[in-house]
Structures are given as C-alpha cells and as structure tokens.
C-alpha cells in the first residue's frame, strides 16, 4: 500500500477556558482530543458525530485553519501541522456547509469561481473558459449562471458554485463540511450524486464531516464515529453502519427515524442525558454515563468503564479487513471488541 495522502496522528485542539477576575486560563475545552487516522488517495472518510463532538474543529485543524494543540498532520509526506504552505492551500480545498453565507453577495458566479485562480495566479490566459467548464462540471449552465449573482441562485445551485470554486485549483483533497445539511431535501440527492461523480472522474479524496448518517451512507468509504473529541469507532462503511460495534454508534444509528419502518420505540436505543461538557469530560470511557451496555455488565466490569479510558483497538472478530488500508476496523470500547456478541 502506498503512503496515505493525509495522515493524522494524535491530533489535539484544546481551547482555553478563562474565568475569574483576571480571566486566567482555568481549563480547556478538549474539542479534539487525540485523533489519528490515515486517508488514502481517492477514498472518502466520513467523520460522523453529533453537534459539539469536535468534528468541525477536526476539519479546520487538519486543513490549517486552526492550529493544533498537539499532534501531527502529514499531507503527501510533508508535515503541515506546524504551518501550511501555498501548495497545501492549493491542493486542499473546502466545501462549506452554508452556501448562503460563504459566497460573496456582490460578486458574480464567474468571479467567485475564478477567485482562487486569481489568488494563486493560475490560468491567466483561459480563466473564463476554464471557469465555464467548471460550472458545467458541477451541473450549472454557464450561459445562465456565469454572470449571475448568488442571490439569483437556488440553494442547490449555490452549493454547486461552492463546489466549483473548491475544484478550481484542481485539489487532491476536498474537505466537505456538512455539504448538504443546509439544503432542501429534494436537492440534497443531487449534490451527493455530484460529489460521487466528481470523485469517480477526478480521483478526489474526500474528508466528509457530517452529522447525518444517511448522507455518510451514500458517500463514504470509511466511517469514523466521533464522540466528545475522540474517535470511538473507525472502519469500513458497511462494517460500521451495518454492524455497529461501539454502543454509541449503535445508539446513533438506531435514533435515525426510518421513513417506511413501522415505528417501534422499544427497539430504539435511548441515550440518556446530554453530551457532557467537553471542558470536563467524564473519567474513563467518555461515553460511560450514557452507555446502555453498562446495564448488562457486572459491577467490576462497569467499574472498568469508569476508571479506564478504552483505546481505539482493532476489533478481533471484526468485519472484512480492507485490502487497501492498513488500519482495519477499530473500536474504543472495553467490551465490544472481544465480547463476541
């Protein structure tokens, strides 16, 4: 296996908490707290989790919009966690969640898409033609839309502009931060389809950030489930979503309301309480206060969950090993990897 395109090791991003009269630093929000993963060229890793789990901070830290507190990010063999260069900026692009606020209202679509080219001084000769081509690629009609302003476009069209802008510099890695969650339901499918097509045609690598498991299901190759700043489960899409190993993954999946299924509330795994404060995470397994497995454990075993933080480890019985990735399926739970359920 070739070296991964993106490699993240032990990444942490803590935000200081200040309090008292002098606003001294009295603690830290552990938004991202020791995350490691590899991302091979051409694959899609989805980071799924609920709000506040740190997935957006993870994305921002990986692409250098935010500085890591600790850990290392390597892109194409080069360390970028201590500062990114222009090449990295060109090769890694981001598609934002909200197409309404990330496009400059006073610029035409053509200029918006051409802007990264201008910044990086590329394609000075055929910029307009290239931009038109890009618009066509993302399913927009250059004749109609090249000179349009963002407010003249629908939400889906705006997101397509956002994608075209991200593609302009022919990046290798696209970070997709909740790319469809602001869009109308009937429009989402189109954007997801577009992302799939683009990846197939251009060999793009995606890091997808989403709270919506349905979206992840449609796009990702591998899935990382994030809870309170940590990955609790990481593996191939089918493995994780069809046979969730971590109790949190299980609960998350069972919470998604199915359209056609007869409602059966008793089947659903309920998560008690709210996610804990990331500035003061629970000791041991961070999920333990809400974990439904604990009811089935004896006292000694349950005590382990409180005392000891589980490592993300290879699941012993677990799933199909992926031939093209050396990190197979890993789960951070004291009991699930080996309990042979």
């Amino acid at each position, binding site marked *: 296996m070739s070296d991964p395109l993106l490699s993240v090791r032990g990444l942490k991003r803590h935000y200081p908490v200040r309090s*008292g*009269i*002098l*606003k001294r630093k009295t603690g830290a929000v552990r938004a991202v707290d020791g995350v490691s993963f590899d991302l091979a060229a051409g694959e899609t890793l989805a980071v799924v989790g609920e709000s506040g789990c740190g997935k957006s901070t993870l994305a921002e830290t990986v692409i250098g919009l935010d500085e890591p507190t600790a850990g290392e990010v390597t892109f194409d063999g080069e360390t970028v966690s201590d500062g990114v260069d222009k090449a990295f900026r060109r090769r890694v692009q981001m598609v934002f969640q909200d197409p309404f606020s990330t496009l400059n209202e006073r610029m035409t679509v053509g200029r918006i898409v051409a802007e990264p080219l201008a910044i990086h001084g590329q394609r000075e000769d055929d910029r307009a033609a290239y931009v038109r081509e890009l618009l066509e690629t993302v399913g927009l009609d250059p004749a109609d839309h090249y000179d349009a302003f963002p407010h003249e476009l629908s939400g889906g069209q705006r997101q397509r502009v956002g994608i075209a802008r991200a593609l302009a510099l022919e990046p290798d890695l696209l970070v997709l931060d909740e790319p469809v969650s602001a869009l109308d339901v009937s429009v989402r499918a189109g954007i997801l389809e577009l992302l799939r097509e683009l990846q197939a045609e251009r060999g793009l690598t995606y890091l997808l950030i989403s709270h919506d498991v349905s979206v992840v299901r449609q796009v990702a190759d591998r899935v990382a489930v994030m809870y309170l700043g940590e990955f609790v489960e990481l593996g191939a899409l089918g493995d994780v979503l069809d046979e969730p190993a971590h109790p949190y993954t299980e609960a998350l999946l069972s919470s998604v309301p199915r359209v056609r299924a007869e409602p059966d509330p008793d089947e659903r795994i309920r998560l008690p309480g709210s996610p804990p404060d990331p500035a003061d995470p629970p000791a041991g397994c961070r999920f333990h206060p809400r974990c439904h497995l604990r009811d089935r454990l004896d006292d000694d075993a349950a005590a382990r969950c409180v005392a000891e933080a589980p490592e993300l480890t290879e699941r012993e019985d677990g799933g199909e090993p992926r031939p093209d990735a050396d990190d197979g399926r890993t789960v951070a739970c004291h009991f699930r990897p080996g309990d042979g359920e």
Partner: protein
Amino acid sequence: MVSRLQAFLLRRLLWALPVLALVSVAIFGLIRLVPGDPAIVMLGADAPPEQLAAVRAELGLDEPLPVQYVDYVGDAVRGDLGHSYVDDRAVSAAIASRLPTTLFLTLAGFLVSLSIAIPAGLLSATNRGEWLDGVGLGFGLLGVSIPNFWLGVVLLLLFGVRLDWLPVAGYVSPLADPVEGVRYLLLPGITLGTAMAAVVTRMLRSELLEELRREYLDAVRMKGVGELGVLTHATKNAFIPVVTVIGMQFGYLLGGSIVVETVFSIPGMGRLLIDAIGSRDYIMLQGVVLVYTTFFVAVNIVVDGAYFYLNPKLGGER
C-alpha cells in the same frame, strides 16, 4: 466566592485604573503644554515679577514635570486636588459644592429624556408606518439636529421671557425647595434631555421593531397572553441594548450640561470648568476634568454592569 457579576465589575474597575492614569497624564500634560506661562496668563500682563514667582512656586511650576505629576497624583489619590490660586479655594471643596448641582441637572435631563423616549419609542414602534411613528421619527431627527444652546435659548425666551412661566437663570436645589427646584430644573432638563430622548427613542424604536419580529413573542401569544403582555416581554428585551445607549448618552449629558449650565446660569461643574478655562485656573481645570473623566468612567462601569446584570446570557444575577 465572588459572583460573576462581581468578578466582572472588579475586572472593569481594574481596567479603569490604567484608563484614569492615562487620562490624568493627558490632562496634566495638555495643560502644561499650552503655550504661555500659566502664572503670567493667570495674573495678567502687568503682574509684578515677585508675584509671578510666588504663583509659580505655589503651582509647583518650578519643579521638573515628572515631579509635578507625581506630586499631583499623590495628592489626588488622597482627595486633594490642589488649591485654586484664582479664588483661593480647595479645588475638591469647589467641586464638591458644584457636583450635586450638575448631578441634579444631569438627572433632570435623564428623567426628561426617558419620560419622552420610552413612550415615544413604544408608540413609534407599535404604530410602525402610521402617523404616530412619523411624529416619533420626526422628533428623533429634530432632537439630534437641534443644538443644545439653541434649544436652551429658545425655551428660555419662550417660557422665561415671553410667557414668563419659569425662571430664566439660576438654580435652587431640589433638596432645599422641591417645588422651586423643579421649576428651575425644568427648562434646563428639557434642553439637556431632548437630544438624548431623540437618540433613545430611535434606538428603542428600532430595537423594539427588531424584537417584535422575534419568534418567542408568538410563543407568548400562543399561551393566550394579551398583546399588552406581549409588548411587555418585547420591551424588556429591547431595553437591554438600549441600556448601553442610555449609558453612553449619560456621558453626552455630562458634556451637554456644560453648555446648559452656561445658558441657564446654573452653578454646576460645567460652569466651574468654563470659568477655570476663562480665568486660567489650571489647578481647578485639571481637577474638574479629572472628576468629569472619573465620573464618565464610573458611569461606563455602571452601565456595563447593568448590561451584564440584565442579560442572563452574560451570567447576570438571578
């Protein structure tokens, strides 16, 4: 354990110290950088040299500037703002005798402006686009465009001279004689308060309009609460940002009181300031300016505190 509000106020107070220090340096420096020997300017062209020397010594002008400053601050911290050479008074005593007057005047302006602004803002916002709103908006525009002194003189000519209903000049403490005190403060209060009333009216109107669009009001309506109750909710919320403006306006009132005191011959701090400038009474001048500044800073702290207190999102008290 200090509460968050107390911690906030303490922090603001700590911040105020460097601000005041800076201001004191600025006042001190500016006054001494003005060209012309203060002693000569004070005593006039034909003052004998002996007297000039005496005044210089009394003002400490023969010392190096840093020494003068340290002496000044040292005394100021102990409440001694110096001694006016011009009319032979302790500056602190002079200020103490004038401060209540200015406070009463400012308070009068404050009350006048709020008693105009709150109903005007409410009526304007709740009758948006109708004639009442137009009146409110017109008042808002006029109020901020009319200069204090002009309004003062007009009111004075109308109510003091033409109609002769109210006294033109002077001041009676409302503590000594409430009825006369109010009569004397009425015109100055209106003069002073109008501009602030206009600003607050406009602010309250726009904040309220903003607030009236908020969804929680529909939630309140859905409880079966009447429109008056709904308006109460909206007004309370709209007032939080308005408090900040009111606070800033208080500073404006302090500034405006200088003009108004002059127009209405009210013996307050503003007159003390103007007279100190007029008679080159540097010691008095720097004392008065320092007190004004301190007051301004204090008002700001109070306003910030009020904002903090009123806004539960900032962790105000319950």
